Structures are given as structure tokens and as C-alpha cells.
């Protein structure tokens, strides 16, 4: 597997994801500082984190659709659950994401069960989820990148960023289209994140694991290379 096209895709994915996580590190530092600075950590204290969230959104505006902090239940003194989550519509100021946190509601956003929350809580490591249907939240086919926030071993929640699945694919389009061979980026459950094969749209499951697989570092993702494509899209 020394296909230069595969290497290009791997590099591009790495660059995009590393940028997102680097931006999140700033938000994370601000959450930790905010927690340490406040006696009884309350919802209003999170206002101090907002500038970092907005910075993150403007730094990554080509990629990230939303970012913020999601609190573990019981961490804030005045709210059992809380999302300090901001979305970045193009050419507009960030918009606060209002979700239904009432457990009795049909639209209840049960985020503690969501993989992007539960996995970093369990492993205390950064995580990439998706693509998945984020219903109750943004109602978008989404990729979510999260980092656990902890202080002295106490799990506070996660900081995270959303990237629309369609946007992520668009960012890889150039390198994917240039490849004469079939290249498919899959996540940990072999779900297609992006591909240059029309038979495997993003979101479908890879029908067979494939022999040519390149696992990507620091992500539960792999690049699977298939047979030569019939026609090469414009390079």
C-alpha cells in the first residue's frame, strides 16, 4: 500500500482532524480554568468559555459547523444537564443551540447515552464519531469530535466540534477524485465517511472488509483501497 493517492487522502484527513482537535484544546483549557476559578461552578460561569468557543468557530469556519462544551450531569450547581453549544451559520454570528433537555419529551436530547459523550467519559481519551444522524440536536448527518474535560480525575464533560458529513466529504473531494483506484475512508464500524465510489455513498456499511487497509493514527478510522475505478474523474 504505497499508493501516493492513499497517502494524500490520509494526510488530508490527518490535517483536517488535527486542526479541529487543536482548536478544541484551547476550549478545553478555558473550561478547566473556568472550573478551577469558580467556587460553585454554575451555568453562568460558562460565559467565560464563550470567547474560546467563538474563536474556535472562526478559526475553523471552513470545516466546523458547531462547537462547545457539554457538561456531565451534576457538575453544574444549577443545571443537571447543560449544553453550551454554538453553531456557526455561514456569514453569521454564532447561534446558541437550544435542545430539549426534558426527559419526558419525545424530542429529549439524551446526550449522556450518545457515543460522543459516553466514550470519552469511559476512556478519558479523545474520540471521533460518525457519520450519524444527530436527531434532537442539530438534525444533521454529522461527524463529532470530542475531548474529555477532567480536573483531578473528575470528569466534567466533553468539549467538542461538529463537522457536517457533507462538508467533510467536500473537503476530501479533490484528493479522492484524483485517484484512479477506489479509495474509501471508513470509521471504526466500517461505515463509509467518504469515498470515490458511487456504489458506496457516505453512511453505508462496507460490504466486505477489504484486504488493502491502512489504519489511520489517533483515529478509529481506516482507508480501504479497492479495485481500479472504471473512469477517473477529472484530476
Amino acid at each position: 500500500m504505497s499508493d501516493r493517492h492513499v497517502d494524500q487522502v490520509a494526510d488530508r484527513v490527518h490535517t483536517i482532524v488535527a486542526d479541529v482537535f487543536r482548536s478544541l484544546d484551547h476550549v478545553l483549557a478555558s473550561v478547566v480554568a473556568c472550573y478551577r476559578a469558580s467556587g460553585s461552578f454554575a451555568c453562568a460561569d460558562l460565559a467565560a468559555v464563550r470567547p474560546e468557543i467563538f474563536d474556535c468557530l472562526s478559526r475553523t469556519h471552513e470545516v466546523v459547523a458547531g462547537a462547545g462544551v457539554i457538561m456531565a450531569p451534576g457538575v453544574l450547581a444549577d443545571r443537571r444537564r447543560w449544553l453550551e453549544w454554538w453553531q456557526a451559520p455561514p456569514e453569521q454570528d454564532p447561534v446558541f443551540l437550544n435542545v430539549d433537555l426534558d426527559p419526558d419529551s419525545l424530542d429529549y436530547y439524551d446526550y449522556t447515552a450518545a457515543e460522543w459523550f459516553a466514550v470519552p467519559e469511559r476512556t478519558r481519551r479523545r474520540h471521533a464519531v460518525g457519520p450519524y444522524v444527530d436527531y434532537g440536536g442539530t438534525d444533521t448527518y454529522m461527524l463529532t469530535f470530542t475531548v474529555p474535560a477532567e480536573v483531578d480525575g473528575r470528569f466534567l464533560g466533553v468539549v467538542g466540534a461538529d463537522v457536517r458529513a457533507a462538508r467533510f466529504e467536500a473537503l476530501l473531494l479533490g484528493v479522492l477524485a484524483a485517484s484512479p483506484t477506489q479509495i474509501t475512508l471508513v470509521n471504526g464500524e466500517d461505515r463509509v465517511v467518504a469515498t470515490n465510489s458511487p456504489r458506496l455513498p457516505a453512511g453505508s456499511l462496507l460490504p466486505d472488509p477489504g484486504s488493502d487497509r491502512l489504519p489511520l493514527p489517533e483515529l478509529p478510522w481506516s482507508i480501504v483501497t479497492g479495485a481500479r475505478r472504471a473512469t477517473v474523474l477529472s484530476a
Partner: protein
Amino acid sequence: MLDRVSQLPKAAVFAPVDDGSGRVEVVVRRLAEAIALGLIADGDQLPAELELANALKVSTVTLRAALAALRERGLVETRRGRGGGTFVLAPANPSTARLRRRLRELSTSELREIGDYRSAIAGTAARLAALRASADNVARLRQVLGRLDAATSVGDRRRADGRFHIEVAAAAQSVRLTRAEIDIQAEVGELLWLPYGEAVDPREVVRSHTQVIDAIEARDPARARALTEEHLDKGIERLMEFHWRLVASG
């Protein structure tokens, strides 16, 4: 008011129970449905045990077991002494009355439309979920179904059932189908559960949903779709049945 409840639905309520198996359950369902639908009103006295057992063509033992189950659900109470007997305790729920009215006013073609649309959305979602669900999606479906199984109130059941259908659409990886399913649940979810009151057999729904999850896990799209459509068809048939009973009761 009592007289306005025409004899037609009442006759149907008290018609012989001819289902050979699970007679207690059948009697419970028949009476609970009638109470939930307002066919037997709050405060109505049920016929004497012997008379009722004869009318339903079940033994008094079966009838007593059924009445005990209804008492446990708070749908009837038994008063002792002079003027005693078994009386209906219809929950004074304004939303039940509203839903009853709505179900009566819907035409059969509108009910059919709801069924057709649900079938198209949920059937396709089930088929695609069988092709695209991850192990995580399947685990999530089983978790939601567990919630339905453990639910003790109609509201909890309705929420868990709605959640189940929404999760199937999410497992299909389709934002549009998920959105459509959320809209369907908001529009007709309460209709699908409330009118039956406690009478809908939740175990039957859990059984049916379990089969759908099994088909999704087995990656059998045709079966997942067929089972889902069958389940939804049954649901809409019941709604139509109730609709007619409500129309008949005036």
C-alpha cells in the same frame, strides 16, 4: 348521558369472547378499551358477575380474574354492600376526551393516509436500517425497547414506542426519514397509544419490535420491512375499528 351511549357498541363490548386462548387477557382488553374509549362511562355499573360472564361466554373464574386485573389498573372499583357491584372508574383526562373527539372526526380515508405514510417512512427506515445499522445502533434499539417493556404508564409507553421508531430511522442513517418519523410521532403518536388506554397489549408491541430488531441485526432488509409494515397495518386497523365504534356511539 348514559342513555346516549347507544346499545350498538355496548352490545359489541359485551359480545361473547370467542378467542380460545388467554381469555382473561381478552376480557381485560375488551373492557379496558371500552373504558378508555368512553363506551362505558365513568360511574357506570357493570352487569352482575354471572350475567356478564354469561354474556361474554367465559367462566366466572375467568371474569373474576379479569376484573381483578382491571381493579389493579384502577379502571374499575368494587363496592360492597347494598347498591354494591363493579363500577367503572374512567380517568378524568381531558386529553383523552380530545383524542376521542379527534379520532371520531377523522375520516377513514384520512386514517388510511396516515397509515400509508407511516408505512412508507417506517417500512423504508426498517429496510435501510437492516442494511446500515451498526452494532451500536442495534444495542440502542434494544435499550429503547427495554424502556418500553419496563414502562408502567401510557405516557411512558408512547414515548418509548415513538423513540423506537425514531431510532430505527436514525439507524437507517437518514436525517430525512428521522425527521419524518419525529413529525409522525408528534402528529399521531398519542392517537396510537392513548385511545386504547391500558388496553393495548404492550407485550405484543414489544414482541413485534423485537422481531424487527432481530431482522435488522440479521441484515434481513425484506423481513425488517415486512414485519414493520405488518405491525403498522395492525395499528391502523385498530384505529379504524375504534373510529367506527366512536361514530356508532354517537
